[in-house]
């Protein structure tokens, strides 16, 4: 495993999208130390900001330190594993194809935005647009899975096309905004405007929600088999599914009727 420990804390932007497990695999530690990264507008050798140790050949990278101001950790990664011991900043796993990212602290804006595959696990919280689309893009994440143990901000799963997002804590407003397909599982409280303008896709709520949009209508109370499959998938990937007993009955709402109306929101019966 290659270890990159931040030498001193910085609040200026750090661009880390070039540091990928597969591109570093064949390089020596000396070559890795000389790789250039952007710190603000300055291009610096990696060794000026990080202490570089270990061995990159197993395609595993561990960042250590508070990387709240970093951007693009694991962006477009195609394999291997990145572990961040600390906070991870914006655009973690932006457009990633496969592999695994683990963050022990918090992630910020656009976690797993437009990812195509792979798994992201965040032990802390994340801010807006988890698994969402970049502005101007038609679709957000198209595959893979994102697990956030803590809470997340607004627009979780915005324009999501496929894949799975599970949030252990609360979510902000506009969950599943303009969702095209895919699944978002929310254990905690859900903010207003859930499912706004969703076309298709599933929002599975662990708690009752207030103020469902008037463009959603009650469909039925059922015990859908698909929820059991999602719960099994979640627990196999290590997510706590205590609030999601698929054997229970769930109330299903359909919407958004301003769009095709084929989206579904499952809420507990009580």
């Amino acid at each position, binding site marked *: 495993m290659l270890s990159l420990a931040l030498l001193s804390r910085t609040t200026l932007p750090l661009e880390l999208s070039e540091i990928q497990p597969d591109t570093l695999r064949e390089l020596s530690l000396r070559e890795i130390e000389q790789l250039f990264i952007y710190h603000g*507008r300055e291009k610096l050798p990696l060794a000026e900001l990080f202490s570089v140790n270990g061995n990159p050949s197993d395609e595993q990278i561990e960042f250590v330190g508070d990387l709240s101001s970093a951007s693009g950790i694991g962006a477009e990664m195609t394999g291997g594993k990145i572990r961040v011991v600390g906070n991870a900043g914006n655009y973690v796993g932006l457009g990633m194809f496969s592999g695994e990212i683990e963050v022990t602290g918090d992630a910020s804006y656009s976690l797993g935005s437009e990812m195509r595959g792979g798994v992201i696990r965040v032990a802390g919280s994340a801010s807006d647009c988890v698994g969402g689309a970049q502005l101007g893009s038609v679709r957000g994440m198209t595959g893979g899975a994102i697990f956030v143990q803590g809470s997340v901000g607004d627009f979780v799963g915005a324009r999501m096309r496929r894949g799975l997002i599970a949030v252990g804590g609360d979510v902000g407003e506009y969950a599943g905004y303009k969702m095209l397909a895919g699944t978002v599982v929310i254990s905690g409280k859900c903010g207003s405007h859930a499912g706004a303008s969703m076309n298709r896709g599933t929002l599975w709520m662990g708690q009752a929600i207030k103020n469902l949009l*008037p463009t959603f209508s009650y469909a039925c109370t059922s015990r859908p088999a698909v929820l059991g499959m999602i719960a099994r998938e979640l627990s196999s990937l290590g997510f706590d599914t205590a609030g999601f007993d698929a054997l229970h009955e769930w109330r299903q709402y359909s919407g958004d009727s301003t769009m095709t109306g084929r989206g579904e929101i499952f809420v507990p019966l009580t």
Partner: protein
Amino acid sequence: MSEPINNVACAACGLICENITVRVDNGKIIAAENACSKCAAKLIGQSAGNTAKATISGKPCSVDEAVAQAIAILAESRSPLIYGLAGSDIATQRAAIALADRLGATLDPALPAFHRAAIQAIQAVGISTCTLGEVKQRADVVVFWGCDPDATHPALRERFLDVPGEHVKSRQILAIGSQRPAAHIDEFFQWPVEQQYTSISTLRALVAGREVSCTPDLQALAELLKSANYSVIFFGPELSGVPELEALFQLVRQLNSQTRCAALGLGGTQIENVLTWQSGYPFAVNFALGYPRYGPHTFSANYLLEHGQVDSVLLVGSEGSEHLSAAAQKQLEKLPVILLDNASQKCELKPVVKIPTAVPGIHCAGTVFRMDGVPLRLPAIFDSELLSAADVLSAIQQGVLTSCG
């Protein structure tokens, strides 16, 4: 008293009225005819400004010394931010973009939250819009949604709504928002800010003929918009979320399948146009990597300042700094700030370097984009010795090129 100066153009709001006449006495503007309250406040008392001095840390100095100090600050900075440009002309915007590009800085025009959200909504779903001329000549229903035109654009009614148009004799004026505007409104729909998305969404369902449970006033508004020949919806500060504006623009598009409808932002001049045609992006553009990158959230001045991601700030005009959050304004006090501003503009900030610059339309001529995107020329009132902001920015850029190689 000297002769009156006719056809003065005023850039106090986004309307750019060009019918102002000013009188100058003893080197100062003492009266403005045809001027609204905002225009009078902007123009009266202005002078050629030849006595304004540049300062470094509050001490007067020559402009050359101030520019040299600004160059030193920016050359040393690892993550500079260029913010402002509210009320600036095209030449100033061009110069600011060229400097940001050379520096690898982040450039963010000082736009209000609803204007930024509207740009993002336009990028996502598009907009069916019109010019103010069309409003005057054709609109039979005018809706003020989340805005108060009499407070922000006092001349709007007089110039465009109270006069009969070529194709319309009278018009119905509606308002939607949390508070009824002070001036006359034919019908008012009181909806709190947090209910706006739900209301627009319900209206969309009603206009599309879908069954949806709703209040009678929503039903009435949907019928009114559908039966109008040409409705124009002005939107403003209370619609500052991207989803609300996306939904509004989609509602307008839906209405266009049955009748004619247009949406128009009731804001200031369009200071994002030059940046859009030069970099491809309208605001929050970062040049650090040698090419423009767009981050409507993460490269916004508010985000960068709140998270300590910039280490120097070049403010092109203090106008518009009220759009910064309290945390961002607090951070601004801790950073080295270079301020290019007109001496008459009140500013509580204590910049390291302050350089007085000419105001387009008062001290120098310039071209700006009206709120509906129409470019208009602002002629100068005074023959001033003040440098334009574009000249100062170009001088700074030359210095930066020399010192950074």
